[in-house]
């Protein structure tokens, strides 16, 4: 239940992330000090509004999964704040976190390994109720049946083990489990990338239905910009731990401004060989190592427009048009010229 006070305090946003950083220690010296750090998430800020879906795209290794794991506090941030419904959850300890757990839930990428193979579907979905002591056995059973109904599973399937389900059904179990504690924000970490194409649409539609029904906000993480564009109101593009561009979906698709976003768009396959694109438009090579990221702009090593300033100065994420933010020196130049 979000009171009116918190609503006004948070400007209708469900979560406000600012300056979020996560550095993973790599290797240890004899004294136990880390030798190096992987800069998985480096100074990321964004907000998600009530009822909104924010898409987060990026290549593998860009840190998008780490952001999801930070938001549900499976990882502890190195720095930064995460205001969930006005309350900073970034520094809470495990015990203090318990009351907030229900508010932010997660749907996992792999529907096979994210369900305990030795537990029945019904036990998996009822576990959150048992942990939070929500009702007696009969009440919990009723709630579980309702959830099964909401995600399109049959009541008879409550007593089945997860390996008896298909990938899409397993993902439905995962979604039912995530819904159990009345969440306001759901982190969907590549929820369909492990599924058959025919099932992907079903699960995406289910998520959209549930969003309307329960007034949910989503952080939708995926590497495929076409999937993200299908479900998101706004899209944030991530590269090597930093946000490169944030804009509303239509705007971003029609007028991608950042060179990286452009190349991502070019990487979407077109089902027509005659329209096949020039090889040079898609990003070449691999994402650099997050242990030793390039100086200045992180994309400069693969950017076709890079110039000397890109190596010296980190571009800041700024609004160049209303609701369209880009982190690129090209647009600073434009603005200065104007």
């Amino acid at each position: 239940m979000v009171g009116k006070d918190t609503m006004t305090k948070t400007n209708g946003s469900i979560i406000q992330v600012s300056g979020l950083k996560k550095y993973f220690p790599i290797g240890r010296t004899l004294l136990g000090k880390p030798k190096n750090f992987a800069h998985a998430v480096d100074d990321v800020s964004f907000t998600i509004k009530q009822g909104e879906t924010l898409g987060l795209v990026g290549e593998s290794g860009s840190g998008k999964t780490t952001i999801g794991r930070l938001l549900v506090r499976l990882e502890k941030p190195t720095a930064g704040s995460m205001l969930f419904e006005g309350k900073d959850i970034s520094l809470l300890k495990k015990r203090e976190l318990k009351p907030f757990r229900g508010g932010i839930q997660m749907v996992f990428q792999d529907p096979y390994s994210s369900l305990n193979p030795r537990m029945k579907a019904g036990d998996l979905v009822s576990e959150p109720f048992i942990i939070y002591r929500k009702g007696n056995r009969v009440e919990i059973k009723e709630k579980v049946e309702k959830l099964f109904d909401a995600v399109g599973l049959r009541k008879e399937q409550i007593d089945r083990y997860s390996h008896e389900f298909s990938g899409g059904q397993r993902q439905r179990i995962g979604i039912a489990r995530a819904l159990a504690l009345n969440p306001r924000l759901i982190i969907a970490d590549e929820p369909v990338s492990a599924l058959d194409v025919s099932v992907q649409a079903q699960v995406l539609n289910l998520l959209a239905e549930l969003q309307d029904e329960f007034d949910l906000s989503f952080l939708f993480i995926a590497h495929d910009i076409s999937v993200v564009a299908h479900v998101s109101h706004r899209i944030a593009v991530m590269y090597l731990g930093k946000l490169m561009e944030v804009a509303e979906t239509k705007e971003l698709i029609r007028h991608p401004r950042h060179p990286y976003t452009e190349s991502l768009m070019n990487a979407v396959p077109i089902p027509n060989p005659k329209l096949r694109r020039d090889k040079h438009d898609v990003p070449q090579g691999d994402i650099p190592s997050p242990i030793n990221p390039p100086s200045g702009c992180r994309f400069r090593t693969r950017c076709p427009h890079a110039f000397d300033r890109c190596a010296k100065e980190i571009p800041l994420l700024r609004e160049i048009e209303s609701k369209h933010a880009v982190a690129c020196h090209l647009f600073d130049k434009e603005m200065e010229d104007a």
Partner: protein
Amino acid sequence: MNKRKIDNIIEDLGQIEFDERASAKFKFKDIFSKVIFKNPSMAIGSIMIFLLIILAIIGPSIAPYDSQELNMSERFESPSWNHIFGTDNMGRDIFSRVLHGTRVTFKIGLASVGIGLAFGLLIGLFAGYSRGKLQNVLMRFIDILYSFPALLIAMALVAFLGPSTRNLIIAVGIASIRYYARVTYGVVLVERNKPYLDAAEIVGAGALRQMFRHLIPNIVPPLIVVATLGFAGAVLNAAGLSFLGLGVQPPTPEWGLILSSGRNYIIRAPWLLIFPGLAIMVAVLSFNIFGDGLRDLLDPKQQRKV
């Protein structure tokens, strides 16, 4: 049995995969189809163990003589129809003593495996789950235990506690803790990184719930195998200690002890040693065969390689 039931069984036979997931719904009727048809070593092992268990239960009541009844007029009789395993230096019937010994052996084996498994499981579970300091302290302790032979640890413990059946069980059990702890630790390290634990954490499951409700059911299958093989080891260790006089005390009929008390007469009456020795061998062998079969069943990758 109606037709539908038969159809079900046929269907089940078709669906059975040697697969971790399939073993999650291990049903009783599967035991026969999986075990007997697909895995001969397990079939042989389980039949032998079954017979041993029957003997352990009803053995003493079908024994022709009292295991401790002395009969000085029938000393050192070689095997005959009256005494099929012969008699010992005090005229006691070896067959009856070996039969009684089955129960003693099972008691020692089960109890010591229970002790070893319970503590080993807990140590391995906490060490594997916790990471950091607790992990190091626990596993270095296990490493230290690993630097002594198990029999030596058990001997030291019995010497300290005093020889008796109860202390033998405790000593053999404690000596085997390291073994179960290592295996549990290894399996937990693998399971620890699976997303289902993250999923449990997100819905508010605390460390204890994650360990006992989520991890334990997933580490039990490999531990069953280890416990089966460990049972054979425990029987052997217990017999060894009893042979050395550090375990079961006379006149209780324990196989190692029968062996030990007959060793002075090995030339004159070799049956005093042959039959209890065979009994130990059969028991150890059947648990080893069964354990190997069980491992094949629960570890499909290894099996397909063979």
